[in-house]
C-alpha cells in the first residue's frame, strides 16, 4: 500500500486545536482508522500472523518429541517454545481473532453504524499489536541466564535466541518466575507484555458492553439479539471482571522482579500459592473468554445451514451466561495438587461439575437445531459440526478433572494437554474457522472455494484427532508435560510419532486455508448479498459491507427478524419461503447499498496509534529502568502517551466537513471515494 496523504482542502475551524485526518486509502488510512470493520480486519490479519508463529513453535516442539531422546532442541529452547506457543495461541491468536469478529460483526448484528467509542476501539488494537510485538521482541533482546542451583540440562539457556523467550509456562508460576530461579529478562517480557494485552482487552470490553447496551437498533431487545452478540456481551463482562485480577498479579510479579518486593518469595514470607489463586481466578474465566465467542459463532451457523431457527434460544443464551457466572467459582480445580484444604477440593470439584450442566444444555440445543433440519454440509457447517463433536470429547475429559483423585493422577501429564486442546483447538479454533468461512462473502464480496474449504476441514479434523487423541493415553501411561525428552524404554515413541504426523497434517490444512483465502479474495466468484439465506442483520446489506453499514437504521420486530421476513411456517412447523421474499431481500439490499442522504462516520485519528506506541516505550522503560537509557525511555514513553491522550481529548469530535453540510446538500459526491477505498482495502 502506497503512502497517500490526501491534501486537506477544507478550511480549519478556528476553535479547534487539531485537524482530524481524513484519509480513506493507503497506509496512513489504516494507521488512523476508527472504522470498526477496518479495525476488525487489522485484528484478524495480526492474529492470524501470530497463529502462524504459534503453529511453527508447535511444529518445532513436535519435531523434538517425534522420537525418544530427541536432540533437535535443547531443554532451554523447549521451555521457551512451549511457553511462547501457549502465550501466542491464547493471547495473540484466539483472543484477538475473537475481537476481530466482535469488531466486525457486533455493530452489524445490532444494527449500529459503529461501536460506542471508535477511537478507543482503535487504541485497543494498537495496544494489542504493540503488546504482541513487545513479547516477541524478547527473541532479540531478552536474556535467560542459568538459574540458581545450576544449569538446565541440555545446554546453556543463553545458547540461542529461542532459549531466551519467556520460558515459565503461560501460567508463570511462582516461585519459578522469581529472580532466583528465572534471572534475566525473559519473564519480564511476558509479565509486562501480558499487562499491555490486558489493557487492550479491558478497553475493548468496556467499548463492547456500552455498544451492546446502548446502540441497538429500535426493536432489538436484549432477547432478540443474535446469540453471537450475547456471547460477546458475556465475554466482555468476563474480561471486565477477570482482567483487573491478573493485572494486580502481574504488577506484583513485576514489582518482585524489578523493585525487590517479596510477594512470591517463600523464604521471605511471601506466598507462591497466592500467585496460583490470583492467576487462576483470572485464568479460568479466561478459558471461557476463549470458547464462548466460538460457541456464539456456531449458534449462528448451525441454524442457517439447517434451515431452522435456533432450538431453545433463551436456554442457549442463559446457558452461556451461566457458564460465565459459574466460571468465577471453579478456579481452584487447577490447583488440586497444590495442597489446598480437602474441603476446598471437594467444593471446587463439585462446582466444576456444575459447569457441565449449562454446557450440556448448549450441546443438546445445537443437536436439536440440526435435528430434522434441511442440512447443507458447506464448509462452515462442517466446522460447526466438528466443533460440537470435538468439544463434547474435550468437555467429557474435563469432567474427569473435576473428580479430585482422578485429577491428581492426571496433573501435569499429557492427558491434560489432550483435554484443553480438544476444547481450545477442536472447540475454539474450529468455531472460529466456521465463522471465517461463514462471513467470508460479507467481508470480501466473494465466495471462497468450497472444494479447498472441505479439504481444509477434513485434513484439520483428521490431523487434530491424530495429534491430540493419542495424548489421552500417552498421558494416562504417565508421559509428563513440559519435558523435552522421554526415554526409549518408556514405550511412548510410536504414539508420539503419530502425534507429530498429525501436527504436520494440521499445518498442511492451514496452508490450504491460506491459499483459499488469498485466491478467493482476489479471484473468487462474486458473492450474492445473502448467499446462505441467513437470519441476522448483516446479511441485509450488500457484500462487501458498505463503509457506513446501514443506509437506513433497521427496525427489528422479532428474534431472527430477517428470517421471519423471508419465511413462514407450515402446520408441521417447517419453514416455507414467502412468495415475495426474493423481491423483499433485493429491495432491502438495494436500499442499504444506495443511501439517499449523507452519512457521517467516525473520523479517523492519529492518536490511538501513538498511545499504543507510548505504552510500549513505558514497558521497555520499566524493564530496563536500571540501565542508563531506561529512565529516558520511560519518560519519553510517558510523555508520548499523556501527550497523545491530551491531543486526543482536544481534537474536534466531529469531522470538519460536517460544518459545511447544514444546507442539506446531497451527499453522494462524498460517498463514492469512500466506497471505492473500501473495495480497495478488501480485495
Amino acid at each position, binding site marked *: 500500500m502506497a503512502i497517500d496523504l490526501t491534501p486537506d482542502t477544507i478550511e480549519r475551524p478556528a476553535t479547534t486545536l487539531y485537524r482530524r485526518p481524513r484519509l480513506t486509502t493507503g497506509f496512513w488510512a489504516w494507521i488512523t482508522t476508527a472504522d470498526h470493520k477496518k479495525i476488525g480486519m487489522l485484528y484478524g490479519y495480526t492474529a492470524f500472523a501470530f497463529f502462524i508463529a504459534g503453529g511453527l513453535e508447535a511444529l518445532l516442539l513436535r519435531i523434538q518429541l517425534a522420537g525418544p531422546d530427541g536432540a533437535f532442541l535443547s531443554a532451554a529452547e523447549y521451555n521457551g517454545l512451549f511457553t511462547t506457543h501457549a502465550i501466542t495461541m491464547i493471547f495473540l491468536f484466539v483472543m484477538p481473532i475473537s475481537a476481530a469478529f466482535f469488531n466486525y460483526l457486533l455493530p452489524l448484528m445490532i444494527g449500529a453504524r459503529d461501536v460506542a467509542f*471508535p477511537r478507543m476501539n482503535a487504541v485497543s488494537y494498537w495496544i494489542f499489536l504493540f503488546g504482541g510485538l513487545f513479547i516477541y521482541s524478547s527473541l532479540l533482546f531478552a536474556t535467560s541466564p542459568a538459574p540458581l542451583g545450576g544449569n538446565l540440562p541440555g545446554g546453556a539457556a543463553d545458547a540461542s535466541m529461542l532459549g531466551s523467550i519467556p520460558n515459565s509456562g503461560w501460567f508463570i508460576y511462582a516461585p519459578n518466575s522469581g529472580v532466583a530461579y528465572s534471572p534475566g529478562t525473559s519473564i519480564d517480557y511476558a509479565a509486562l507484555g501480558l499487562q499491555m494485552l490486558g489493557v487492550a482487552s479491558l478497553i475493548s470490553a468496556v*467499548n463492547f458492553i456500552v455498544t451492546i*447496551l446502548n446502540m441497538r437498533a429500535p426493536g432489538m431487545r436484549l432477547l432478540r439479539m443474535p446469540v453471537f452478540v450475547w456471547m460477546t456481551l458475556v465475554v466482555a463482562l468476563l474480561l471486565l471482571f477477570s482482567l483487573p485480577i491478573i493485572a494486580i498479579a502481574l504488577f*506484583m510479579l513485576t514489582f518482585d522482579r524489578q523493585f*525487590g*518486593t517479596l510477594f512470591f518469595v517463600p523464604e521471605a*514470607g511471601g506466598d507462591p500459592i497466592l500467585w496460583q489463586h490470583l492467576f487462576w481466578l483470572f485464568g479460568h474465566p479466561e478459558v471461557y473468554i476463549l470458547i464462548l465467542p466460538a460457541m456464539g459463532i456456531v449458534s449462528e451457523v448451525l441454524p442457517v445451514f439447517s434451515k431452522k431457527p435456533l432450538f431453545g434460544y433463551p436456554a442457549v443464551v442463559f446457558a452461556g451466561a451461566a457458564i460465565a457466572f459459574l466460571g468465577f467459582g471453579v478456579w481452584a480445580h487447577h490447583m488440586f495438587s497444590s495442597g489446598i484444604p480437602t474441603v476446598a477440593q471437594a467444593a471446587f470439584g463439585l462446582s466444576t461439575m456444575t459447569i457441565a450442566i449449562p454446557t450440556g444444555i448448549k450441546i443438546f440445543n445445537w443437536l436439536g437445531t440440526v435435528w430434522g433440519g434441511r442440512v447443507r454440509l458447506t464448509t462452515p457447517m462442517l466446522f460447526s459440526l466438528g466443533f460440537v463433536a470435538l468439544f463434547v470429547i474435550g468437555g467429557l475429559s474435563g469432567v474427569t478433572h473435576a473428580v479430585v483423585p482422578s485429577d491428581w493422577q492426571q496433573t501435569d501429564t499429557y492427558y491434560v494437554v489432550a483435554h484443553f486442546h480438544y476444547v481450545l483447538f477442536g472447540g475454539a479454533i474450529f468455531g472460529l474457522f466456521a465463522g471465517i468461512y461463514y462471513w467470508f462473502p460479507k467481508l470480501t464480496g466473494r465466495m471462497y472455494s468450497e472444494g479447498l474449504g472441505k479439504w481444509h476441514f477434513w485434513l484439520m479434523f483428521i490431523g487434530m484427532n491424530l495429534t491430540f487423541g493419542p495424548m489421552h493415553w500417552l498421558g494416562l501411561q504417565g508421559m509428563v508435560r513440559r519435558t523435552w525428552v522421554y526415554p526409549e524404554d518408556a514405550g511412548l515413541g510410536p504414539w508420539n510419532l503419530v502425534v507429530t504426523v498429525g501436527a504436520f497434517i494440521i499445518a498442511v490444512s492451514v496452508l490450504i486455508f491460506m491459499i483459499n483465502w488469498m485466491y478467493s479474495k482476489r479471484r473468487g466468484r462474486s458473492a450474492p448479498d445473502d448467499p446462505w439465506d441467513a437470519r441476522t442483520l448483516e446479511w441485509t446489506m450488500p457484500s462487501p459491507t458498505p463503509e457506513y453499514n446501514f443506509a437506513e437504521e433497521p427496525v427489528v420486530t422479532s428474534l431472527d427478524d430477517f428470517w421471519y421476513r423471508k419465511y413462514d411456517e407450515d402446520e408441521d412447523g417447517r419453514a416455507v419461503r414467502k412468495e415475495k421474499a426474493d423481491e423483499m431481500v433485493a429491495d432491502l439490499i438495494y436500499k442499504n447499498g444506495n443511501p439517499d442522504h449523507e452519512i457521517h462516520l467516525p473520523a479517523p485519528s492519529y492518536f490511538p496509534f501513538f498511545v499504543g506506541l507510548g505504552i510500549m516505550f513505558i514497558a521497555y522503560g520499566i524493564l530496563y529502568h536500571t540501565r542508563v537509557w531506561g529512565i529516558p525511555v520511560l519518560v519519553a514513553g510517558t510523555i508520548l502517551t499523556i501527550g497523545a491522550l*491530551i491531543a486526543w481529548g482536544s481534537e474536534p*469530535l466531529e469531522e470538519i466537513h460536517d460544518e459545511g453540510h447544514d444546507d442539506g446538500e446531497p451527499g453522494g459526491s462524498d460517498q463514492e471515494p469512500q466506497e471505492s477505498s473500501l473495495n480497495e482495502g478488501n480485495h
Partner: protein
Amino acid sequence: MAELAHGHGDGPAHHQVTGIDNRKLGMWVFLSSEFLFFGALINNYLLFKGRDFGPGALYPVELYDIPFTSISSFVLLMSSLTMVLAHSALARNDQEQTRTWLFATALLGIVFVSGQFFEFGEFILHGLKLNVNPAASAFYMLTGFHGVHVIIGVLMLMVLAFKSLRTGSLSETEGMNVELVGLYWHFVDIIWIVIFVLVYLIQ
C-alpha cells in the same frame, strides 16, 4: 434523517437504548472493573498483614499515625463535596463557580497526595521500605495505586479547569467530561474510605 448518522459516541449518538449517555455508561462499566482491581490489592494486604516474618519484622500497622491519616482522609472526602459543587454549578451554567470548584477539588486532591508522600517518607525513615517484607510491599502497593488514581484524577480536573480558564466556559461535551471526572473522583474517594477502614482503623 441526518441525526441518524451519528452512530458514534464521540458526538451525540442517534439514540441510546438505556437513556444513559455512552460515555457515562462507559465510565460506570470501567469503574465496576476498578472495584476488582482494588479488591485484589486490599485482599493482598489483608492476607499479608498478620503473617509472621520472623523476629524484629516491622509492620505498617506499628507506624500508622491515625490522627494524621484521618485529616488527610477528611481532606479527600471534602474534595468529593467540592466536586459535587462544581457539578451543580455547571448544571446552573455558572461557569465561574464551576471553575473555582474544579480547582478546589484538584487542590484538595494534591493536598491528599502530598500527605501520602509525607507518610511514605516517614515510614521509610523508620525503616519500612518497600522490600522489607510482603506486608510492607502490599501496603505500599495498595496505597500507592490509590495515590496514582488520585493523581490521574487531579490531572483530569486540571485539564478541565484550565480549559475553562482559557476559553471562558465549558462546552456541552466538556460538561459531560465534568460529570465523568466526577464519577471517577467519587469512586476514588469511596475506595479510600474502604482502605482507611480496613487497613488503618481495623487492626
